[in-house]
């Protein structure tokens, strides 16, 4: 069974989409699929940070790209 996720990517601008992922997909795998290096982002589930080895559940996900200040 697949899971529906509302995905918001904040990287300079904002992009929003609804995606479907397989059950038991980890956040890490999701980032790999999206070709996003996990060192460069924080993943927020319903606004709370999540460990990337956790599994994706039906929710609102935000991928926040972090860049160097300075």
């Amino acid at each position, binding site marked *: 069974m697949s899971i529906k996720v509302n995905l918001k990517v904040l990287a300079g601008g904002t992009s929003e989409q609804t995606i479907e992922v397989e059950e038991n997909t980890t956040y890490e795998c999701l980032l790999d699929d999206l070709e996003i290096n996990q060192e460069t982002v924080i993943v927020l589930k319903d606004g709370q*940070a999540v460990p990337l080895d956790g599994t994706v559940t039906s929710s609102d996900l935000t991928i926040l790209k972090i860049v*160097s200040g300075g």
Partner: protein
Amino acid sequence: MNMKCNKCNKEAIIFQKYSGMHLCKKHFIEDVERKIKFTIRKHFNIQKNDIIAIALSGGKDSAVLLYMLHKLFDKRPDIELIAITIDEGIEGYREHTLKIAKELTAKLGVKHIIRSFKDEFDTPLDDIIAQEREKGACSYCGVLRKTLLNKTALEVGATKLATGHNLDDEAQTILLNHLRGDVSRMVKLAQPHALEGLVLRAKPLRYIPEKEVALYAIVSDLTVDFSECPYAHEAIRGEVRNMLNVFEVAHPGTKYSLLKGFDTMAPIISKEYLNVELAKCRICGEPCSFEICQACKLLGRE
């Protein structure tokens, strides 16, 4: 499935691959603060009557730095904190972080000094970059910013100058210096010692991965801006950053290994590699290793 904190069984907010630990908000904050305190104790000998200048751009790293130093030293009547912000003159970018910087110092009640390239060098960075030039934007900005930071820190009588460099910044610089074979820069990056005319540098966040600085800012409710400097794409550092991030994912702990290896090696190469005596720049009088300082050279003041 929710992951549990290895220390208290509450819901984790982060998995640190390099340590194998899942941490909840409380224990993540503790972990970051413990590393910062350890770094300060081990590397940056804060003494009675120190005046610590903090380079505050308003980005996440310097915001976390100021917040932490304030948390650690606000109760110490013998230590003073002064934030210094340099307005390089980057339209559409710096105004925003400048506002964040002002709000943070006002909230914490920290003295704040703002200096600009325009007032100091008669020209904003945007104008320098628009001219015909030999080097990348970051070379101009970096040299001029460091010169003005040091000068301002000296003027306010600072005994330390703290910057928000994180683990990623340090690991990138180490690797970059290796790739360029630049031993003299490696020596400069080594743990700093006191030199006439240069305020002693301190980097309390050098053991905190960039991601964790960002997460710490978020969970501490600090206003952070994740916009990127419009000139950032010009720097070769970006390539090194990508390379290191790929390596870190495949081999967790790579960034720490680079830093720890360098810290072990640095005192040895520094001993063998002759330390340059600092002279005063013939044109502006700022400390430098040659007759004319880098800032004056870049500004074409020769």
